[in-house]
């Protein structure tokens, strides 16, 4: 277990090299966890949070790049994707018995604003006491990409990295078959769709894997940083992109935008996606770059990157 979710690496065949790659991935996944988790007290994220309102904390080039990436997401989502939104968890606790009031949320909302963060080349400072960042929404997906790069650098040309549903598929499973990845229904365990991926990332964002139950009502863990309340939106969004981190932020922003705006965002972005609505209806888009999608009859040996059998929605759900 790393990143707080089940993780796996799949390499075909029982080769030593495959075992080595798996071991490297485990070490690297734990590194990401120890550096960026907000739960371990010595992680850089925990240090930044502990120093809020006090002093800047030194960061390395990788951390700086992750902040840069988070800034792009913040800009593109017009403030919805905000790594400072984690403070809302103080209000939305598991032991909660009542829906929080606006008065209760107001002081916490004052701690949420990505633009408040003072980021320099080698340091990060949260200017207000009580501010908190959570890079989990970027790092887990990025870690899938980083692990995939590591695996490839070890000479493995076929593998699946799965970090709690954020998946990168290195190469294909066989010469003419991509990696088959299933997408689960938010309300039940059975996969609702499957997709074959070759050299592509897939990330799923949804309110179903982790949720809060208050007064018998399920609340998504996707919280709107502007209102402080959970977003009443799509149940789940899966996106395919060249990088898992891009797929992940595209999916998260889609959720944060609410159902109608979220679907518009996905269409405009032009990535292949599959979204599941509140009532379980499945919506999908092939993306603008339709060259990336080949029909299941075509052999994929020549294409570098492809999405085969594009989101075959299963008939008997």
């Amino acid at each position: 277990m790393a990143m707080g979710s089940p993780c796996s690496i799949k390499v075909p065949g029982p080769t030593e090299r495959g075992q080595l790659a798996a071991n490297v991935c485990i070490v690297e996944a734990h590194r990401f966890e120890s550096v960026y988790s907000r739960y371990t007290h010595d992680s850089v994220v925990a240090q930044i949070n502990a120093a809020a309102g006090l002093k800047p904390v030194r960061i390395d080039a990788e951390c700086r790049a992750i902040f840069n990436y988070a800034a792009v997401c913040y800009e593109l989502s017009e403030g919805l994707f905000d790594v400072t939104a984690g403070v809302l968890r103080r209000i939305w606790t598991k032991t909660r018995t009542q829906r929080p009031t606006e008065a209760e949320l107001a002081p916490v909302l004052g701690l949420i604003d990505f633009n408040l963060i003072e980021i320099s080349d080698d340091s990060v400072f949260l200017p207000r006491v009580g501010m908190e960042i959570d890079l989990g929404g970027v790092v887990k997906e990025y870690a899938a990409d980083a692990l995939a790069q590591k695996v490839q650098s070890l000479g493995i040309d076929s593998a699946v990295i799965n970090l709690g549903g954020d998946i990168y598929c290195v190469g294909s499973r066989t010469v003419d078959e991509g990696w088959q990845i299933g997408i689960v229904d938010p309300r039940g365990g059975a996969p609702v769709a499957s997709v074959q991926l070759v050299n592509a990332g897939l990330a799923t964002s949804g309110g179903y894997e982790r949720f809060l139950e208050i007064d018998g009502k399920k609340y998504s863990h996707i919280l709107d940083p502007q209102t402080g309340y959970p977003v009443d939106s799509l149940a789940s969004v899966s996106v395919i992109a060249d990088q898992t981190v891009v797929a992940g932020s595209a999916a998260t922003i889609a959720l944060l935008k609410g159902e109608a705006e979220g679907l518009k965002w996905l269409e405009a972005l032009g990535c292949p996606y599959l979204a599941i609505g509140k009532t379980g209806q499945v919506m999908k888009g092939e993306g603008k770059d339709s060259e990336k999608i080949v029909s299941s009859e075509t052999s994929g040996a020549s294409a570098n990157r492809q999405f085969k059998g594009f989101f075959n929605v299963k008939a008997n759900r």
Partner: protein
Amino acid sequence: MFRAITIMLIMLVIGGCQAVEPWERDRLSRKDMQLIADPLEAQRTEQIFFSKEASSGGSAAAGGGCGCN
């Protein structure tokens, strides 16, 4: 020369260039905004001007010569 570079570096930085953030670089990453937009075209024109004019160089270090000059 290194001193000149250092001075230029400082001038450029102090000169008040606003930092361009990564998410603002989509236009700068376009093909025609690169120093060399097309390597083949660059090589071709350099070869022609090298063989027909007395001046050459200025774009990274000069490579080998040819019998054209």
